[in-house]
């Protein structure tokens, strides 16, 4: 496999013209280049999977194709003709139908309306309900969907709603059907049913764009793959010619990092752990699970231990973190802290037990944009003390000043608004907030995403020194090098299941990649796999 952006798989047999051809597409948002001269094409009668990690540009590309975003530069051709869409309605009229991850239908209306609305049959100036139900019933029958068209949409399961969305898309007589994460809320049988529908659509010549985090499903259904990474095209491949491990590598990439000096230091620490005492267990989760989020997993985190969670986006890594951090309530399983069983219902309770969860969603669930650096830093501590015992202003200033210095937060002053800081410094402010409550377990979900290399290195060093001082850390990152560099132990998740739990004694990126892609494949790792 080559790692250049020019990789391109051959056209299908008979050389039909692509039904969609996007050339040299670039889209920028303030501060981010979301797509950087990406090429993408789709052939009739083919299922084409768009692959990439978070922030790779998948959804931006889809939104560019469906007219939700306007394109800065580049050309979109539909059946050979250049087009520019100014909205989803135009794209739909041109034969591009999209079924979004969150079913974008109207639960308060009937199934028939959801299939037909916008093209409803009319009689005497009004909607002909009888004809509408009949037509909807015919379409649903074509999908082997036996539901009453007159029933309310939200009286049906999500899977059925998803199929109704597809029924709508079919009735528009789409040439191109975009399925964005259609399987994320479906169970095995429902997925099989969906795939049956996809195959029959494919036979009728529809070009299907399929996005899913589940590699098994991607390999089962798709003919062609396009991989994006950081807004750039990695390549286009035929599915049966690309090994899973190569796909995962293409998606994750290898960062030529300037962080190697740190690596050796951590590994020496691991040497101690391996030879010396096993750390005392601080948090032990047994078979914790949440429906639709994560299958039962066991995870233990020792005092002063850094446990890395590795897996692709959607593998369940964030879901596990949220269960342990008290953000989501588990449906089953048991959490023990210091050997005592505990039920965490809210992050507030978790904080009382000195467990802090720092979200991957820095902007929405982390920093408070409109507050100052100081306010952001003291927020959790103040909340923990209770609002009737305000932290004296002098103490706040001391805290802020000490963390700004200790974490090397680059800000004009403690009074600067957090929104004006760079991503890396915002992340450090967030870290300072949690460090201020002196947690015993710090859960860091993608703390280094979208920040520059320098800040990344500083955060990694910080995690390392925190662990040395006895703090436990659950560390999640999409970058495997980072996980390998920092963790004493690595738990590998795949398709919402734990597939491996290994001590980090010189595991290579390749081994980890293999686990992420195929589960426990190599015999020597089998021993580490928890049942």
């Amino acid at each position, binding site marked *: 496999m080559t790692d250049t952006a020019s990789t391109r798989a051959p056209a299908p047999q008979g050389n039909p013209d692509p039904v969609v051809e996007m050339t040299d597409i670039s889209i920028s948002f303030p501060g981010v280049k979301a797509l950087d001269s990406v090429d993408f094409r789709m052939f009739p009668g083919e299922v084409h999977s768009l692959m990439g990690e978070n922030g790779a540009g998948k959804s931006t590309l889809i939104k560019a194709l469906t007219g939700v975003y306007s394109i800065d530069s580049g050309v979109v051709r539909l059946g050979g003709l250049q087009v520019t869409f100014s909205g989803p309605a135009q794209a739909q009229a041109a034969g591009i139908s999209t079924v979004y991850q969150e079913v974008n239908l109207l639960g308060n209306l009937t199934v028939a309306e959801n299939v037909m609305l916008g093209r409803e049959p009319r009689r005497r100036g009004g909607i002909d309900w009888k004809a509408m139900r009949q037509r909807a019933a015919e379409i649903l029958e074509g999908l082997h969907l*036996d539901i009453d068209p007159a*029933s309310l949409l939200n009286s049906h399961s999500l899977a059925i709603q998803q199929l109704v969305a597809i029924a709508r898309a079919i009735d528009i007589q789409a040439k191109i059907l975009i399925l964005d994460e259609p399987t994320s809320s479906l169970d095995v049988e429902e997925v099989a049913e969906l795939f049956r529908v996809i195959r029959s659509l494919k036979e009728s010549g529809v070009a299907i764009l399929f996005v899913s985090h589940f590699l098994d499903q991607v390999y089962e259904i798709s003919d062609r793959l396009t991989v994006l990474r950081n807004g750039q095209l990695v390549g286009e491949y035929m599915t049966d010619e690309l090994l899973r491990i190569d796909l995962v590598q293409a998606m994750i990439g290898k960062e030529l990092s300037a962080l190697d000096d740190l690596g050796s230091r951590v590994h020496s620490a691991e040497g101690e752990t391996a030879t010396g005492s096993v750390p005392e267990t601080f948090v032990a989760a047994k078979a914790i699970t949440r*429906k639709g989020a994560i299958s039962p997993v066991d995870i233990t985190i020792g005092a002063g231990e850094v446990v890395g969670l590795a897996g692709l986006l959607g593998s369940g890594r964030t879901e596990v973190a949220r269960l342990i951090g008290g953000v989501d309530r588990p449906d089953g399983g048991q959490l023990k802290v210091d050997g005592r069983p505990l039920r965490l219902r809210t992050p507030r309770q978790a904080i009382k037990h000195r467990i802090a969860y720092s979200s991957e969603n820095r902007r929405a669930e982390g920093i408070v944009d409109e507050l100052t650096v100081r306010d952001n830093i003291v927020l959790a501590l103040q909340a923990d003390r209770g609002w009737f015992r305000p932290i004296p202003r002098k103490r706040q200033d001391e805290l802020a000043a000490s963390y700004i210095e200790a974490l090397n937060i680059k800000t004009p002053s403690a009074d600067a608004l957090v929104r004006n800081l760079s991503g890396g410094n915002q992340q450090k402010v967030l870290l300072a907030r949690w460090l201020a409550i002196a947690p015993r377990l710090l859960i860091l979900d993608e703390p280094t995403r979208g920040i520059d290399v320098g800040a990344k290195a500083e955060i990694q060093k910080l995690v390392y020194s925190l662990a040395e001082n006895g703090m436990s850390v659950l560390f999640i990152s999409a970058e495997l090098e980072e996980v390998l560099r920092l963790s004493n132990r690595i738990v590998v998740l795949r398709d919402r299941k734990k597939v491996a739990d290994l001590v980090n004694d010189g595991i290579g990126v390749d081994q980890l990649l293999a686990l992420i892609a195929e589960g426990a494949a190599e015999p020597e790792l089998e021993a580490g796999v928890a049942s």
Partner: protein
Amino acid sequence: MSAVATGPVATGRNLGARIVDVFTSPKSGPVLVTGVLFLLMFAVGGVRYRGFLSGQVFLNLFIDNAYLIVLAIGMTFVILTGGIDLSVGAVVALSTIIAARLLQAGWSPGVVILLILAITSALGLLVGLMIHVFEVQPFIATLAAMFLARGLCYIIAKESITIDNPFFVSMANVRIPLGYRLSITPSVIIALLALAVAVWVLQYTRFGRTTYAIGGSEQSGMLMGLPTSRTKVLVYVISGFCSGLAGVLYAFYTLSGYALTAVGTELDAIAAVVIGGTLLTGGYGFVLGSALGVLVLGLIQTILSFEGSLSSWWTKIFIGALLLVFIILQKVLTSRRT
């Protein structure tokens, strides 16, 4: 939304299960409960008071509340989209005072009525644009319109003006006999016509279905290619028009124009819509339910007047209690479903 599969409900179609299903559906449940409540109240009234169980008592509900039915129609459109219109009471007052003032000046009643409907529709359009273009909260935008309308009333006239125009007087006094010594006023016919048009629009036009769609999920409706922006503005125009029409009916009913009239009527209209089974968050409800809601409110008043000794403030207390019950009912029904 949880991923729990509820599955198709209508597989085992035995009658009991279907009745339970209809009563617990967020779509039809609350309105059926209101219907049952209405019948119960009527029956209780009939047992307790002599002369209660008569056709004319029932028809008087329409006669006394014709304007409120029209107000509730407009309010239903707005609430179905998830919005609210606080301006309708003030717009009713404005309409009565414009009518009184212009009739006093010798304008022809036909022109006056058309002018009122045009002015109030334009005010609704203004509110709708404010909400859609500038993304102002409906609560705030209609609050502003409420103050504006109420203020305009005082600019036109501070004192109450009596209407002595022959057409208006005849509309107030004419009774249309229905036989068996029963009769209604022309206002009732106007209100029922408006109701019929509203039922048709909501059920049989794309505009009507888009109104529901906005209440369900504006984003989804937009992605499905429905004309959500236009519809969102238009519902406030409809509410404005209905307020104007209600104002005219109110002028027929009271034969006066007064700046301080119909204070708090917007809340009566909202209460009627909610009791009639429309979800305050939008997306579910029927305009017929709202009319039923108005009748329930009217019935409470009638019962209290038959009781005689109770203060009329008890009406408010009963309405308050009913509202509370219905909002909780809605909450229970919707949370069960989603």
